[in-house]
């Protein structure tokens, strides 16, 4: 349906993810990675967000599970009015259980532009381990202060709760992260958390006129995000 909008677009730099002959029908490919201890509900949360209706792909020898979802993002304009809209192809990467056996490697973090960092509200240790995850992120992510949203998951299990809301919030504030209490079971705050992260990543992109600071700039084989020429990203609304 969007093919007419792709016309006249100059060929993007070579990408690994998109065939050169097929112009993708989106403006940005955004990759998020879900992190956190085993069993905090990363997979369930992504499952919930993608409504169980989208393909999830598992590359077994690579050990990455990812789900995809298309969203339209509207960048709020400086004056508060609704800005232009952008078609986003979201890729949500999951650790696929490999973190049970080993620590994640640098390559795993590469290319991810935003991070959903989860702990389990019924498991105090998973909150304590947030520090470790953040230090891993600082080491491995594309920059030292990547965009991260902290989620205290399983808020539906109120009777088993071990972490009070103010403790999660305190941890988030300490590291300057947005905080959501989520439930992958009921869907509470799940979309909000992902959308918040998307806002942060898109805002960073807008601000970054110097492209070397953009997510993906560390990747060896060229950029990982797609940005069309200015004219093409224009009004789709």
């Amino acid at each position, binding site marked *: 349906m969007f093919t007419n909008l792709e016309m006249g677009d100059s060929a993007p730099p070579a990408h690994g993810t998109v065939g050169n002959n097929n112009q993708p029908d989106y403006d940005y490919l955004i990759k998020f990675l879900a992190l956190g201890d*085993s069993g905090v509900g990363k997979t369930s949360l992504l499952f919930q967000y993608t409504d169980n209706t989208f393909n999830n792909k598992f590359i*077994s*020898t690579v*050990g990455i*599970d990812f789900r995809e979802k298309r969203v339209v993002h509207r960048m709020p304009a400086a004056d508060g009015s609704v800005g232009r809209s952008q078609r986003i192809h979201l890729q949500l990467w999951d650790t*696929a*259980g490999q973190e049970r*056996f*080993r620590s994640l*490697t640098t390559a795993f973090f590469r290319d991810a532009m935003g991070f959903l960092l989860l702990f389990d509200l019924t498991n105090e240790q998973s909150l304590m381990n947030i520090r470790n995850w953040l230090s891993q992120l600082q080491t491995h992510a594309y920059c030292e202060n990547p965009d991260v949203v902290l989620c205290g998951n399983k808020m539906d299990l109120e009777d088993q709760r071990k972490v009070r809301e103010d403790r999660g919030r305190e941890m988030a504030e300490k590291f300057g992260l947005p905080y959501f209490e989520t439930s992958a079971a009921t869907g509470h705050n799940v979309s909000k958390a992902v959308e918040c992260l998307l806002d942060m990543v898109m805002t960073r992109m807008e601000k970054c006129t110097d492209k070397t600071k953009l997510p993906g700039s560390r990747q060896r084989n060229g950029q990982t995000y797609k940005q069309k020429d200015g004219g093409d990203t224009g009004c789709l609304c």
Partner: protein
Amino acid sequence: MNPEFAEIGQQFVAAYYKGFDDKNSRATLQPLYHSTALLTFEGCQFQGPQAIVEKLMSVPSDNIQRAITCADYQPTIDGGVQVCIIGQLKTDSEHDKPMPFTHVFLLKRENANYFINNEIFRLALHNF
């Protein structure tokens, strides 16, 4: 060299995974390790039965389902058995997909018994 190396290897593999895959019985593997045993688990090294079993117990999956694709055995010069396995495993999370792995053992013979002297485990994942 031991002519029964293949039978010994097969029995060992069956007993080892039976013990490992249910967390309740994982600690019962400790007597299988020789006091000089070495484990390299995803690149991390552990020495001695106690440290090794602690590591095994720390793998956060209560039940592991396993499919052995193939196992190869060789007799060693000192009467032991070398075992090399490739297979797939699945953790108890309903969402985790099967993951390929390789597992290598060197079994040492002492009197009429066999002990694990060397063990190397890796998930066969390539996102390095």
